[in-house]
């Protein structure tokens, strides 16, 4: 297969989501209980949808679908192995960042549509957070694309056949990981849906299929950003002995596990602190990373 068909992308999403669930259990030090999880899923699916009719019903129910769509489009940009990749766009890495940007309206629609005060607070938190973290994501993509001279993810993987980008541009990786964790609204950046602070925040009103779509979208998002991290920084499918696709899967799992494990070790970041870190530290450093990337490209990749 030279290119993923839309069905194949959906298959990766649907197969990858349970794998992310498994990683969640393992990083929490919990014995996975698939039977219990299936039972909980069935319970959620049987629950009727909630209709916050006094508020914006259309936005409310469209949000989970848009969130899932953004996650699947991002996933489609990930190159899994030579000849086994998603949509092979010329500017795939940029489209990946653009797909992640659609998480922002989806989350805002969810919070605004629910109409509850703390859901709206969660929505505004997210808006502020994503304005701050979208730029580091885009700038880091630019930095790692520079050595390849291309925004095509397969080209970026190809340029790492000798040395992974994580070793060449560690600063870019250090900026990328917190930013994509924030995009996946995972701890310690789970500010818009913080259970104890906002009682579920933007997702507090979702029941039934809506709730399942939100959970699925978050796992697909994590799968997508982990896969793209492996592609952009860890030399993608390159590695000895094992088949390329397996290398890529292992690296993706390792990144996802790292993100999940880190979230358990740290308390949730305060919104003020998260914004301050983004604007005062991450964004200036991202510019530095681009300058460094230019220097590295001139010296080693020409």
């Amino acid at each position, binding site marked *: 297969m030279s290119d993923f068909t839309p069905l194949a992308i959906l298959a990766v999403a649907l197969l990858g989501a349970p794998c992310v669930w498994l990683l969640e*259990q393992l990083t*929490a*030090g*919990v*014995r*996975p*209980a698939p039977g*219990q999880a299936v*039972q*909980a899923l069935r*319970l*959620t699916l*049987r*629950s*009727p949808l*909630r*209709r*916050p*009719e*006094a*508020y914006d019903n259309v936005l409310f129910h469209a949000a989970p679908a848009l969130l899932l769509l953004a996650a699947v489009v991002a996933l489609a940009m990930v190159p899994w192995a030579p000849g086994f990749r998603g949509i092979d766009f010329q500017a795939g890495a940029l489209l990946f960042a653009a797909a992640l940007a659609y998480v922002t309206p989806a989350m805002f629609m969810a919070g605004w549509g629910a*109409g*509850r*005060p*703390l859901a*709206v*607070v969660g929505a*505004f*938190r997210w808006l502020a957070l994503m304005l701050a973290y979208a730029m580091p994501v885009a700038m880091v993509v630019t930095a790692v694309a520079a050595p390849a001279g291309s925004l095509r993810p397969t080209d970026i993987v190809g340029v790492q056949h000798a040395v992974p980008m994580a070793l060449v541009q560690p600063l870019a990786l250090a900026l990328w990981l917190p930013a994509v964790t924030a995009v996946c609204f995972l*701890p*310690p950046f*789970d*500010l818009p*849906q*913080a*259970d*104890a*602070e*906002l*009682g*579920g925040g933007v*997702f*507090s*009103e*979702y*029941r*039934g299929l809506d*709730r399942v779509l939100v959970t699925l979208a978050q796992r697909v998002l994590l799968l997508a950003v982990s896969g793209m991290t492996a592609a952009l920084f860890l030399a993608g499918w390159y590695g000895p002995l094992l088949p390329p696709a397996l290398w890529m899967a292992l690296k993706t799992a390792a990144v996802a596990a790292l993100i999940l494990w880190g979230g*358990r*070790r*740290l*308390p*949730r970041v*305060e*919104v*003020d*602190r998260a914004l301050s870190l983004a604007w005062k530290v991450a964004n200036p450093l991202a510019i530095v990373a681009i300058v460094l990337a230019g220097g590295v490209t001139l010296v080693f990749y020409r």
Partner: protein
Amino acid sequence: MVLAGWRRSTTAALVIPDEQSWTVWGQDPAAEGITPVLDAGRADRLLVPDQIPDELAEAVRSALEDVPSGTPTEPRALPATAGHFADHVTDQQANNHEHGGRHEHDHGGHENGAGHDHGDDDQHGHEDMMAITGDPSADGLVMEPIEFSFGPLASPLPGGLVADVALDGDVVAECRLRATLRQPAAQAGATPSPADLLASASWTALIAAASQAESGVMVPARARWLRLASIELERAVSHLAWLRALARLLGWPALVQQATAGLFPLLACRHELPLELVLSAPRDATTHDITHLLRLAAAETDRVRRLCESRRLAARTAGRGIVSSRAALTAGVRGPIVRASGVGEDARVDDPLYRALGFTAAVREGGDALARTLLRLDEVDASITLAQAARQRASENAETPPPTVSPLGMILEGPRGPLCAQRLRREWRLSAPGARSALSVAGDAAVGLEWATALVVLVSFDLTPWTVDP
């Protein structure tokens, strides 16, 4: 198996009234693999006491409707260690019959398109209907204040506590706390109910001691030592259960896990020293050696301390919600809150039994949320040491100094401050000095803070939902 040593899978549950209460009552939900969630939509189970006070009845009913339909509901008998709710209780079994304990239940309101009720009747959740007043905010920008009530259930505050909040953007403009649960402060009879079910062992021990002192009953020395050990174990459990609630609010699973590891041996100790045995202390009764359990608890608490003394906790709590010693004393706040502000006031200092054990009150400076957290950890350590020493003295049947009863009644230092019992004619007058002041001080401390920080500050006061003062 590779995963043999791993924790078993957990179930997300809406825990009513709250996890901290069940733990203090001796039934830690975490021991059964229950992870409490506040977002009803994530709950796969509902844990609820079989009897609930009238004040919470409406909120519980609302919670039953808010969890996904078909969620198993588990009505559970209130443990004997909890005491009992006062006169007016609602039979939860009747509600469960209506709403489906372990049955599928169908909420026509949602399906018929009536939608979720965002109105004022919706008490359980967190928030009521958004109220927009349009008053200008302090910084001159025209904002739309969001007014809502947080509680009395499914909030990080203990079940029964309500915060009436006005948000200016995401900053708290106003915060008023209400403790909605109440036991009669004046009670007749020889054995009144604990006035605060979050400190039921301390209240029970106080009332028993006061009653025995009044009637001139000679209490065996062993019983007095064991009573002290029991009170200290309750304090340690209460503080660690509170810390775990704080860790859940902070979204910090590592601290939740470690606090839970500290709670398990302490709860086992309390199981070995049941309050009935402590109060009566018959000569032939034997109590198991709890030394190894206390050692284990001390070791786990050390690990909790290492996490709490890291910069990770300080980043969220240092400098937040400062209550100066002067402000605390002026407001009449007592207990750990005032000790975290540098005031070494503790009723145990004047107790001959504690003096015999060389007790000195723990004090911290700063008066912020971090100081309150670390002070309670200091008190957990002290309580474990005191419980061990008291258990030792009990086994040796060591002599005890005679109990002292002041004309103002008997005073005992509970987990949240002093508790008083005074006999007036045929009634017991129970009071918890400083409890009411703590509510107003905590509300004031939250004003001007971002919502999440304000919640951390509110929780850092370890407030009780029970109104004790008459």
